[in-house]
């Protein structure tokens, strides 16, 4: 079974992988030191010379790059190739601050699309498939990345972009799409719309979905898999490192294989910056060893994660990362407690609610307030006031058990929480407006 895109790399033994990574790293450090004054200054400040980096074991000697560095160096400060050799830019959504602009040479685009091709292949994709790309197209890496990867694999590619859900479903039916690529929240929405149109998974031919670009839970995976009749695969990436395809899930669905021949991962203590042993939870850091135009070294992703290496039933030897357990950007500190939206989502799905919610945090009388609006289905509604209030109380109780702090739960009508077609807006922190 043609299960791999690059079998030699994806199933490479560890010693060989380390050798490949080391060769690339040594070359890359030299390239960056010579061409990126911003990073050279950081290395000089730390007293590290390219000659100090002889193998991946020396990686920890290099200085980190953070999102703040990217903002400071915007737009050309981290560029390592002349613009004349660059063929593309992509950009972040800018939801957490100033945009990040990443540059690509043709080599970088090929490398990125190959990484996505590995992901599509791992999800069972071949040139026989019809791949519907419903990520947003444009500066966002989702559309471009999956589009390019789908081309590489040779799938018939439907460049739908996001939105116009009924048309998505119509194309899905008319052209027999077998693979859907979009954000998980949009996949859930397509599933809902399908059922609202009076259709079932039997009316479509989808077999797999490749979903990423936002956090999602196992419960949400099950909801999507059921509503669309597919197997749902996670894909990970960030614009800073190239885009989706840095890591991808195989059929085992127990973590994402990192394309570590291109992106060397580390887990560090977010406070001290110290590298943590395998299996520890900490901040995920990537070093891009084969990119030319925008080769970030030791880039701190701010994703909290865990790495595990071991033989996978799919045959791949690539190291695995777990689903990020939260992003320091998403983390809210409410009444002194760390709260991640994904925790609240988990409770909602356990309690039988659709994962459509809005978290509002505010501060009244010097005390933090947590209000969660949750959509209630017609089946969950009752003509008896007590039943509805009991539901609110039960949900608030379950969330309190999970978080350790009491929220106020508000049940609202279906579809009353604005659904975004790209990244879902889940949190409004009004405290920031007052401070």
């Amino acid at each position: 079974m043609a299960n791999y895109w690059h079998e030699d790399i994806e199933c490479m033994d560890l010693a060989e992988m380390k050798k490949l990574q080391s060769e690339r790293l040594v070359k890359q450090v030299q390239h960056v030191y010579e061409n990126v004054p911003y990073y050279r200054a950081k290395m000089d400040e730390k007293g590290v010379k390219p000659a100090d980096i002889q193998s991946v074991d020396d990686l920890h000697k290099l200085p980190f790059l953070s999102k703040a560095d990217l903002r400071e160096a915007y737009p050309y400060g981290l560029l390592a190739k002349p613009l004349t050799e660059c063929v593309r830019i992509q950009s972040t959504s800018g939801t957490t601050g100033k945009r990040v602009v990443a540059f690509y040479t043709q080599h970088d685009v090929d490398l990125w699309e190959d990484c996505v091709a590995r992901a599509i292949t791992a999800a069972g994709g071949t040139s026989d498939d019809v791949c519907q790309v419903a990520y947003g197209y444009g500066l966002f890496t989702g559309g471009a990345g999956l589009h390019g990867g789908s081309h590489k694999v040779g799938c018939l590619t439907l460049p739908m972009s996001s939105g116009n859900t009924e048309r998505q479903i119509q194309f899905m039916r008319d052209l027999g799409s077998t693979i859907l690529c979009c954000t998980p929240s949009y996949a859930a929405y397509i599933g809902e719309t399908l059922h609202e149109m009076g259709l079932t998974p039997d009316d479509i031919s989808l077999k797999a979905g490749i979903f990423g670009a936002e956090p999602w839970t196992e419960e949400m995976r099950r909801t999507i898999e059921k509503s669309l009749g597919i197997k749902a695969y996670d894909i990970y990436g960030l614009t800073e490192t190239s885009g989706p395809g840095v890591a991808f899930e195989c059929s085992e669905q127990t973590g994402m294989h990192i394309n570590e021949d291109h992106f060397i991962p580390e887990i560090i203590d977010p406070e001290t910056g110290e590298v943590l042993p395998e299996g520890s939870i900490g901040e995920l850091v990537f070093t891009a060893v084969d990119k030319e135009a925008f080769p970030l070294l030791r880039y701190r992703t701010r994703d909290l994660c865990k790495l595990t290496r071991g033989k996978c039933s799919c045959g791949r030897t690539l190291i695995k990362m777990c689903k990020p357990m939260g992003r320091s950007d998403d983390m809210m500190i409410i009444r002194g407690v760390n709260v991640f939206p994904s925790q609240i989502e988990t409770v909602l799905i356990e309690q039988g609610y659709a994962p459509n919610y809005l978290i509002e945090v505010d501060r009244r009388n010097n005390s933090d307030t947590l209000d969660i609006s949750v959509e209630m289905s017609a089946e969950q509604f009752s003509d008896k006031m007590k039943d509805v209030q009991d539901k609110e109380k039960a949900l608030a109780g379950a969330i309190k058990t999970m978080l350790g702090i009491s929220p106020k739960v508000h049940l609202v009508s279906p579809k009353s929480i604005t659904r975004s077609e790209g990244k879902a807006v889940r949190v409004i922190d009004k405290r920031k407006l007052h401070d």
Partner: protein
Amino acid sequence: MDTIKQFSIFVENKQGKMAEVTRLLADAGIDLRTLSLADTRDFGILRIIVNDPDKAETLLHENGWTFKVTSVIGIKVPDVPGGVASVLEALNDADLNVEYMYAFVNRTPGRADTIIRVDDETAALKALRDHGIDILTAEEAYDA
């Protein structure tokens, strides 16, 4: 028919929501026979009896309102002191609990027609009849 179709509509506590749903029904020519509103700080439950339940059900569904159709009992309560009390006593004697109740306005002189919601309708209807209390049929409720 002895039980009446009641619509309970989930109405978020936002300005204009009540007007929106009642206008929707009005524009379709649906007449409200009676209504009651139970409310909290966040939301209300608008309970209504209409002249054309089938049409109302389709309309509310098509327009995406969250609602439940439940059957309730209509009672012709004599408009005299103790009228309601005797109804409640009849139900109490049969160990039946009333979830909520509300009245029609301006119907037949001398009578205060009332809607009650109980869990066991069969038992309630029997208890009421055993006490000689007149039941309002669905047709009477819808046609007024």
